[in-house]
């Protein structure tokens, strides 16, 4: 019997995948067609292009008085306020996320408990930011404080998910060797758990701060402080040069913060 195969025979032995490919393609086309059925828009009557032009021109010619004044209406102050909201929001969010993340880690609590806690986190995450905004405005009144609390509630979901992942990756061997060396519980936490968790926790926090800074514009919808409200007002009244000034400031700030945060995070990862 001849075991040698020619190239043509080898090729003919290739698994036939066309049926699977066909089914996948058909399914994808069906789903896309179904989802395309929802796409509709009320025509703007040709003013769309004018608006696009206005935005581009506005970004190219930002209002200098808005961009460079140091008063409470100027872009620098608004950016500073936004940064404060994002910073404290991330911190408070981390504090709120801590219990969730320890209770959601399946190596600490039994599986069913962890599952229920995760479901709860999902529920917390499903409530949109502006609903939280409304709730907190009832607590604190409109302003940056409400924005901060809203931001912290919106951070809980992602923070506790990432925290839980790093808790589940804890190396128990280190704890056992500390036990064997005669350490008590506090020593174990101080030398066994904290050094393992701190780098990933702080890296997550820095990343979330980055995201919060970007999402802070959502808070403007409900009057919860930050740069969002002036931006939305400017857009609704077609003041494109003001929009340009605010967007420019925000983009530059986010780029700088992103650059710093990625530097910090690589440093943390390398230890």
């Amino acid at each position: 019997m001849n075991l040698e195969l020619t190239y043509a025979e080898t090729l003919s032995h290739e698994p036939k995948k066309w049926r699977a490919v066909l089914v996948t393609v058909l399914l994808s086309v069906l789903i896309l067609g179904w989802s395309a059925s929802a796409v509709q828009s009320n025509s703007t009557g040709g003013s769309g292009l004018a608006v696009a032009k206005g935005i581009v021109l506005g970004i190219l010619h930002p209002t200098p008085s808005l961009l460079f004044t140091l008063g409470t209406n100027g872009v620098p102050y608004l950016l500073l306020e936004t940064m404060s909201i994002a910073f404290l929001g991330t911190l408070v969010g981390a504090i709120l996320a801590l219990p969730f993340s320890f209770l959601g880690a399946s190596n600490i609590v039994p599986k069913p408990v962890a599952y229920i806690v995760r479901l709860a986190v999902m529920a917390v995450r499903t409530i949109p930011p502006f609903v939280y905004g409304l709730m907190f405005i009832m607590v604190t009144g409109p302003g940056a404080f409400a924005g901060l609390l809203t931001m912290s509630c919106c951070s809980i979901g992602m923070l506790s998910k990432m925290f839980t992942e790093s808790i589940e990756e804890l190396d128990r061997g280190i704890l056992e060797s500390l036990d064997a060396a005669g350490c008590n519980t506090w020593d174990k936490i101080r030398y066994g758990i904290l050094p393992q968790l701190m780098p990933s926790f702080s890296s997550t926090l820095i990343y979330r701060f980055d995201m919060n800074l970007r999402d802070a514009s959502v808070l403007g919808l409900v009057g919860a402080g930050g740069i969002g409200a002036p931006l939305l007002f400017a857009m609704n009244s077609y003041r494109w040069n003001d929009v340009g000034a605010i967007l420019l400031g925000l983009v530059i700030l986010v780029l700088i913060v992103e650059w710093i945060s990625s530097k910090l995070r690589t440093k943390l990862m390398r230890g």
Partner: protein
Amino acid sequence: MPKMSLYDKVFKPRSYTLESGQVIEEKRSRIPLVLLVLVILVITSGELTGFSLDTLVTRINYFFVILRDMVPPDWSYMPRVWQPLMDTIKMSLLGSVVGAVLCIPFSILCASNLVHNKVITAFFKFFYSLVRTLPTLVIALIATYIFGLGTFAGTVAIAVFTFAYCGKILYEQIETVDMGSHEALEALGMGRLSAIRYAVWPQVLPGFISNVLFCFEGNVRYASILGYVGAGGLGLILNERIGWMEYARVGMILLALFVTVVIIESVSSYFRKKLA
């Protein structure tokens, strides 16, 4: 003698003499410095945002006023939630697919192991981070001005967000693939594009699909916010009901969204586990 940073010069490292007579130095911990900076930041931002623990503790019960009105949800409202809910899912599905497909060529242009021109890769990387800095809500708002109110604007906003998010992860993935097979295929005389198709693409595809699925999960949740600026979907009726202060109906909408998100997340995480 290793180079000493400023911090080590101010706070001298602690030195120990070993039994062998060798002197070793332990650098002082950076933690006090980090803590000091953090405390200063917390105090200044607390001042700026008017943070007051007192208000929080005494008035926190007002937080639950709206929440209490939401339960029990108004079940009779459910028939009118279906349509916008489906719109939200469709918007995020289409937007995710369009964004994911669009980002493929751009990510290839970003990857420094496929394109050897530094200027091109740097330009497209900067383009990605520029798109990523624009908040999704602002994109949705701009889209409603350009394309008119409705789901199309929301779809565009989601596509742009997915484009920027998945694109960044995709080019980072492409840059870490094993280039051996690509070189081998080029040595056999294949063109650049077909070498990418047969050597690079199969390596990044599972990770890419998994990321797109993850992005889609988030997009369903995000699409419900976009309606707030008139970009269609659940946010539209959510905004309306909040305006009328019909919180039982708001609760119904949120419950529907929650169940949808849970279903989508468990399906997609099943597929992502298969892909990994």
